[in-house]
């Protein structure tokens, strides 16, 4: 008895340097450079980037995208940089066509480009943004939420009552690529995050067709106890070790020792 052939690769899933497209993507995930990690990026892609403000940003990957030279990107991120840092670099480089985010605040780089029409902005409530990602990752095309009912967020959306309360229908949101940062990664891509640097990164990883991780520390399989994995490696496709970080403060607030 011989096996005729391995199954044909499925249509989904990007190809990459570390494996064939399709069903067998979970081997040789660790690459040796940011350039290699970002090799599959293309113009016009939708890219999600983890982080809350400047906390938890995959700084080296964000810089690497500018160096990669792709453009016309749709960026999905809770913010889009601030204080000229983080994703503001993409705004400066002029490679973003559209931003989907929850909060702009005093991000003047974005305000300027919105006003000029260079960048379109779509505002989504923060919880709805996270839930739309979670839905996409879990195979749910649409769900109902009370957030946004009776507001501009509801415009053009289906409204429906359940048990006497009114809800909006929101659609799943997925991306071509997710760029995230982890405190620790093993070779399979099991991840741990640090404190509030976790934020959107795990949920973005669940729905992107290609999840690329910049890991502060890279360890062997087995070094993370199975019960201590924050995000299982099933959601991770490329890993690059990043030793240096700026870790900027956005608002450094302290109290005096007393």
């Amino acid at each position, binding site marked *: 008895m011989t096996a005729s052939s391995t199954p044909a690769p499925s249509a989904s899933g990007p190809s990459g340097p570390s494996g064939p497209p399709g069903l067998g993507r979970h081997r040789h995930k660790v690459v040796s450079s940011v350039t290699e990690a970002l090799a599959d990026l293309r113009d016009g892609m939708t890219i999600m980037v983890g982080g809350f403000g400047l906390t938890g940003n995959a700084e080296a990957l964000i810089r690497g995208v500018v160096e990669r030279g792709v453009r016309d990107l749709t960026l999905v991120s809770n913010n889009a940089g601030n204080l000229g840092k983080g994703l503001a670099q993409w705004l400066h480089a002029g490679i973003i066509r559209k931003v989907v985010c929850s909060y702009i605040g005093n991000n003047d780089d974005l305000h300027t480009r919105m006003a000029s029409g260079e960048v379109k902005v779509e505002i989504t409530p923060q919880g709805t*943004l996270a839930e739309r990602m979670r839905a996409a990752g879990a195979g749910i095309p649409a769900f109902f939420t009370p957030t946004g009912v009776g507001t501009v967020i509801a415009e053009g959306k289906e409204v429906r009552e359940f048990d006497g309360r009114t809800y909006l229908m929101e659609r799943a949101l997925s991306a071509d690529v997710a760029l995230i940062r982890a405190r620790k990664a093993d070779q399979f891509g099991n991840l741990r995050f640090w404190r509030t640097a976790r934020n959107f990164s795990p949920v973005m990883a669940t729905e992107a067709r290609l999840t690329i991780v910049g890991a502060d520390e890279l360890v062997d399989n087995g070094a993370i106890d199975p019960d201590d994995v924050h995000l299982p490696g099933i959601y991770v496709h490329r890993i690059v070790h990043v030793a240096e970080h700026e870790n900027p403060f956005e608002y450094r607030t302290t109290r005096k020792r007393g």
Partner: protein
Amino acid sequence: MPYSKEQMAQRAAAEIPEGAIVNLGIGLPTLVADYLPAGHAWLHSENGLLGMGPFPYEGDEDPQLINAGKQTVTVLPGGSTFDSSQSFAMIRGGHVDLAFLGAMQVSAHGDLANWAVPGGKVMGVGGAMDLASGCRRVVAMMQHSTKDGEHKLVARCDYPLTAARVVARVITELGVFDPTPEGAFRVVELAPGVTREQVAAVTGAPLL
């Protein structure tokens, strides 16, 4: 004499029962934490932190441990960290007991407008709509009028809404007021020396 901001924060803190889970919005609500006895309540920050502590001592700041206002904070014993979808599941699922939110306008039916000024710069909505729609009790904290003397407690909001019929209580420098289904503000208490008539003159809806 109207309440100072600190007195408003202190008054807001008195709304918090022991053992409550509380989310404090950006701005004025942030001050409420200063008037909570240690261990009285658990502070939730929507960026993925429950059991938020005070600002760190100088030199202990961690740029990866922040609150929703992106200020460096600490985590108390018994605290936990989690991702954004878990954090908003807590909010949207009704597990956060109390939200204190800044407001631009509150209607006498409890509608909240706190994220955009008509014709103004788009700042984004952040977690405000989720907090307003999801938390079990929403308390608005605001100045009673704009700097130009316009009403902020109104019969109907003309600023873009954050959520409809969600505000249970409003704390201003003039006192404490509850929106009601009848579309009037019930006067819960007045700041010392402030009269009903003074309040009525600067409120765009009937008082009860």
